[in-house]
């Protein structure tokens, strides 16, 4: 059951990732990225990270990607034209080399890591909001405060950059 869900959503994630890179229109790429984020949220749920899965949907897919979609719609970014004078030979060689590189990485990852029990859905339930809250406000308090200042700076920067010049 765990393996079935993993394969389905990993397949959706890879398909949407490839679609992100291949699609001509930025809106299609944005929707593919939302598809990737959704399937990754399901995988986080499988790994016991329920709060992170919800945060991924609320923050990433529900706020950051909405921002991307707004900017694409406002700027009326059309589909990309034909590509440069790159030779098709280079494109196909690039795809083959990328696949070979990914295969090599997969082999190295599999060979290096020792054999472990594997992931079973529901075996580890430590990713609740309670646990994250405890760790966040005791051990990781300084990064938490620093990131809130960072967000404040980002808000100020975005407002200053995007306002109308009067």
């Amino acid at each position, binding site marked *: 059951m765990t393996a079935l869900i993993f394969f389905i959503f990993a397949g959706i994630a890879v398909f949407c990732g490839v679609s992100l890179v291949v699609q001509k229109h930025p*809106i299609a790429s944005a929707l593919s990225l*939302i598809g990737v984020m959704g399937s990754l949220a399901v995988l986080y749920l499988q790994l016991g990270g329920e709060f992170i899965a*919800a945060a991924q*949907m609320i923050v990433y897919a529900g706020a950051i990607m*909405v921002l991307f*979609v*707004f900017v694409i*719609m406002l700027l009326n970014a059309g589909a990309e034209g034909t590509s440069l004078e790159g030779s098709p030979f280079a494109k196909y060689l690039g795809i083959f080399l990328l696949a070979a590189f990914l295969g090599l990485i997969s082999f190295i990852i599999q060979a290096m890591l020792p054999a472990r029990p594997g992931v079973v859905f529901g075996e580890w339930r430590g990713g609740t909001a309670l646990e994250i809250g405890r760790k966040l406000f005791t051990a990781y308090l300084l990064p938490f405060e620093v990131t809130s200042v960072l967000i404040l700076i980002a808000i100020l920067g975005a407002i200053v950059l995007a306002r109308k010049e009067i």
Partner: protein
Amino acid sequence: MNFLILSLIKAAIVAFVLLTALAYLQWIERKVIAHIQLRVGPYRVGPHGLLQPLADVVKLITKEGVIPSHVNKLFYIMAPWMAVVLALISIAVIPFGPEITIGPVTTWMQLTDLNMGILFVLAISSVGVYGVALGGWASNNKYSLLGGLRSSAQMISYELPLGLAIAAPLLLANTLSFREMVNYQSGYWLGFIPRWNVIPEILGFVVFLIAGFAETNRVPFDLPEAENELVAGFHTEYSSMKFAAFFMAEYANMVTVTAVATLLFLGGWHPPFPEPYSDVIPILVFALSGLIALYHGLHPARRMDKFTLPAVGLLFLGIAAIFGLSLFVPTLKAILMALFWFCGKIGILLFLFIWVRATLPRFRYDQLMRFAWIFLFPLSMLNLFVTSLVVALTSK
């Protein structure tokens, strides 16, 4: 296997009841708005217009679904279905009642209880913005694009006060699941005041409701889909089933928002005063309405009402009898009482939504955004701050 079959049965029941309720919610809305405006509303299709939703469904299905040639076909077709699927998914975590035992099966009246049910509802409503935004953009029409962008900007702006208003009862109850939240609100202070979260969190409740109006694009926040401002906004180019899908999504969102408000603030399915006294309320309500309908059926104002009013009166008296009978059958009593109080509270909130629609004018768009960022957001933060201060000081 047992869990799977049970879940399928529950899902089928909830889906059937919900879809019927959504159709008849539209009938209720039209009738209530009509009577507030001193007219009658749908009257001819079936007795008192009761078959109007059926007629609307038939009309929308058999209408020609025009797909304009200049639209982006994939997103044009995908947007309303995304909106309706996301709107209906949030019903999965909403509990309608306590744990009940029917024969050999013991189950909660809820499709599934997630540990983070409240976050799930927030996540689905965050992603639900895309249905509207894509629908507006895919129509390739400047009014639709403006309507879609304004609507999505409004929805994400009001998610902030919504989330902060939700956070305050979470602090009180110390849990993220809906079941625990309703269990926290059981019991009574001084023996008769219910422990609902609305009593300490009245400001949070008001902020949640206002943000809920804005999230579901209802008046006074419905500029993006107003018919006389933006040529119907983001659903200008939609016809037939896709248009129906957008409207079903809007009503489903309304039901979700009122259900979450009831669970978080109004105590879910718990009655407002203790058990033995509150059991007579459903019987009283239905019996009284039945008697009033029967009385008016004797000298009706319109000729048709000589049949319909006594029929309605007898129906309500029958329901009152069922409630009275259920006092002697514990399993039936648990289900019926929980459903009565939960649906009663949702019904009152839905009536509030419809009442506001008939009464208030709509906000201009900049007034709407200013209201969210300059008034509601600091107010909900203040509410959360005071709540967390009180919780931190009183829990040692």
